[in-house]
């Protein structure tokens, strides 16, 4: 394995790839730091750029952007109380007060160090766990794959926040969208209404770009874009030995917690950061200080979100099941580049996969190296206003959608999902659940039907296969527990009074 990792480094250090990686890190830092451009959106926007690259370059770029945006969201979270990416929401709680107390440099330093450590720990787990999981999954057949997809779908519970019913509406809507087009098993066209473009189905990319990018631009267009915030002179202080001593246990705990949460299908870095923050409060000897600007309050979410972002790549690379919206885009990118995501990827595309691993190690280490100069540069770059950025992003979205299969029809699909996404966002509907359904739908359906064919239509046979039974059992538990919880909560509420 170490030879593979070394080989990966060798591939990354080829001049073209290194150039791609470094520019991806820079773009990722920038996009993550600017509020309104999330990692998901950035990966989507830059997807078309990768069409013309070789696979190593393409995936180095996408994964580097993915990893670096998770980090840089903390800059605006700490300085302006506005998280640059959703992953940095929990960083605001202590980061902003700490900066206000006159320690912005230290606050940024804690964030940088925690992000890098969390990301590195997550990547190491990624490198070790992916081959193990993939080798187990290589023995899977249709019923097991269906069970895996079902397990992935249960993530709906965590994605939908307080409103489980809406989450389910989103998932089933997505699952239905996925059935449009030619049925893979029987060749029957479904729900195409005589439109030839719909025969091949609704592509994932237009849906993603519409829901996440176009809707965001529509939302942002309602704001006033005259610059109000500027970044003054900040001296970033990464290695402050007094602070480091206090945050080491938090970083260690949160990185492990974050990795574990990330590996669970569907629970992304945002949830990991939130959970890690509340866990840090629980473990702390001074829980009352959280929220007032203490280093642990930054270290906990920042090490967890970067670790979780790497952890979320484990199910993607080993099983072909995306753990979050951004990993769903990367999954789509694999398909666009003619690769079949799944356990076979590590066998057939071994050099590519290890180049990605090596690239991720470099990206996470480079957070410590490059963040300081970046922050001083960022102060100047912030002056590019959204009035320019917004329209350009629309054009990039259009190119990305069109280029998938040279189809303006797909662009119309993107626009349709853009307005759907805008309204969903408006009524606080959990958008990511739709993506979950669209991504996992084809796997779930075809593997279920193939599995059923395999066992001769005997539903009980699904449960007599040990792995399938365990996976489906966990899936059922993951759905039933939150359901019961929400039921109990609504029962208890009236007696609790105001709380």
């Amino acid at each position, binding site marked *: 394995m170490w030879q593979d990792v070394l080989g990966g480094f060798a591939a990354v250090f080829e001049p073209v790839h290194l150039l791609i990686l470094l520019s991806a890190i820079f773009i990722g830092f920038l996009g993550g730091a600017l509020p309104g451009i999330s990692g998901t959106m950035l990966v989507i926007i830059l997807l078309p750029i990768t069409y*013309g690259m070789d696979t190593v370059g393409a995936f180095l770029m996408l994964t580097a952007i993915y990893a670096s945006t998770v980090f840089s969201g903390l800059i605006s979270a700490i300085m302006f109380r506005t998280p640059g990416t959703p992953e940095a929401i929990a960083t605001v709680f202590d980061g902003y007060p700490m900066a206000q107390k006159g320690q912005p440099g230290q606050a940024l330093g804690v964030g940088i160090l925690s992000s890098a450590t969390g990301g590195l720990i997550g990547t190491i787990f990624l490198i070790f766990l992916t081959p193990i999981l993939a080798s187990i999954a290589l023995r899977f057949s249709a019923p097991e794959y269906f069970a895996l997809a079902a397990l992935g779908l249960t993530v709906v519970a965590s994605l939908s926040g307080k409103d489980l019913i809406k989450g389910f*509406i989103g998932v089933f809507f997505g699952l239905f969208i996925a059935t449009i087009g030619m049925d893979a098993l029987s060749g029957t066209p*479904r729900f195409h209404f005589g439109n030839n473009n719909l025969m091949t189905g609704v592509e994932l990319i237009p849906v993603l770009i519409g829901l996440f990018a176009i809707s965001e631009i529509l939302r942002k*267009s309602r704001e*006033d874009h005259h610059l109000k915030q500027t970044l003054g002179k900040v001296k970033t202080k990464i290695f402050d030995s007094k602070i480091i001593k206090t945050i080491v246990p938090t970083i260690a705990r949160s990185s492990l917690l974050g990795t574990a949460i990330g590996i669970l299908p569907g629970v992304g870095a945002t949830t990991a950061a939130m959970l890690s923050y509340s866990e840090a409060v629980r473990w702390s000897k001074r829980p*009352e200080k*959280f929220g007032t600007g203490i280093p642990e309050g930054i270290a906990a979410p920042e090490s967890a979100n970067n670790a979780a972002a790497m952890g979320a790549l484990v199910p993607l690379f080993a099983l072909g099941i995306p753990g979050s919206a951004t990993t769903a885009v990367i999954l789509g990118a694999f398909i666009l580049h003619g690769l079949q995501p799944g356990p076979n990827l590590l066998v057939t595309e071994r050099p590519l996969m290890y180049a990605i691993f090596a690239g991720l190690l470099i990206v996470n280490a480079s957070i410590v190296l490059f963040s300081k100069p970046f922050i001083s540069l960022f102060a100047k770059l912030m002056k590019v206003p959204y009035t320019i950025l917004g329209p350009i992003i629309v*054009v990039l979205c259009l190119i990305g959608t069109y280029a998938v299969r040279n189809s303006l029809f797909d662009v119309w699909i993107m626009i349709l999902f853009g307005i759907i996404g805008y309204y969903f966002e408006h*009524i606080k509907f959990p958008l990511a659940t739709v993506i979950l359904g669209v991504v996992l739908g084809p796997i779930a359906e075809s593997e279920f*039907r193939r599995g059923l064919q395999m066992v001769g239509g005997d539903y009980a046979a699904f449960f007599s296969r040990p792995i399938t039974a365990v996976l489906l059992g966990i899936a059922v538990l993951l759905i039933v527990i939150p359901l019961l919880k929400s039921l109990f909560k609504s029962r208890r509420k009236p007696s609790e009074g105001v709380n």
Partner: protein
Amino acid sequence: MFVHNMILSVVTIVFSIVFLIYANTLPEGRPGSGTWGPGAWPALMLSLLLVMGILLLIKTVFRRKKEQTEDQETDHEPAHIESTQSEHVETEILEPDVVYPSRYWVIFGLIILYTFLMGYIGFALSTLLFIFFATKVMGMQKWLSSLMTTVISTGAIIFIFANLLSVPLPRGIGLFRELSFLIY
């Protein structure tokens, strides 16, 4: 929230019923083989969607009723309580204000027009028009800055995507198609 949830649930219910009817016209699986036909899975998903739509409708109506009765019992207590429990307050996240609530319609219209035009006059010309008007709508005041932004960004995008990365871009029809070959 009440109105939004009502609309969402009704749309969900209607949507799933319409497509359920359609799904039932799809051929069935081979009888006796225990396999599912092409319509069975989508029909199952739509049925579940229908159930969720109905559940949301019930929940929304039920909650509305409960809220109305609760409102009558407790009038305006919450404001008082908030001030007493300021011990462990999390820093609020700064959300930018919505200044132009209906501007998204204009942008949305522009995107539709842009896509529509692109099929006829090709990528280059339609993008020039789109970026120019979109920056204006988004609040760029100076004509010269809008013009500069438009030309530079369109040029850069075409150069990077079409020339450097050879990503296919729409060429339009007729004369526009011929002209586009001169650029990319």
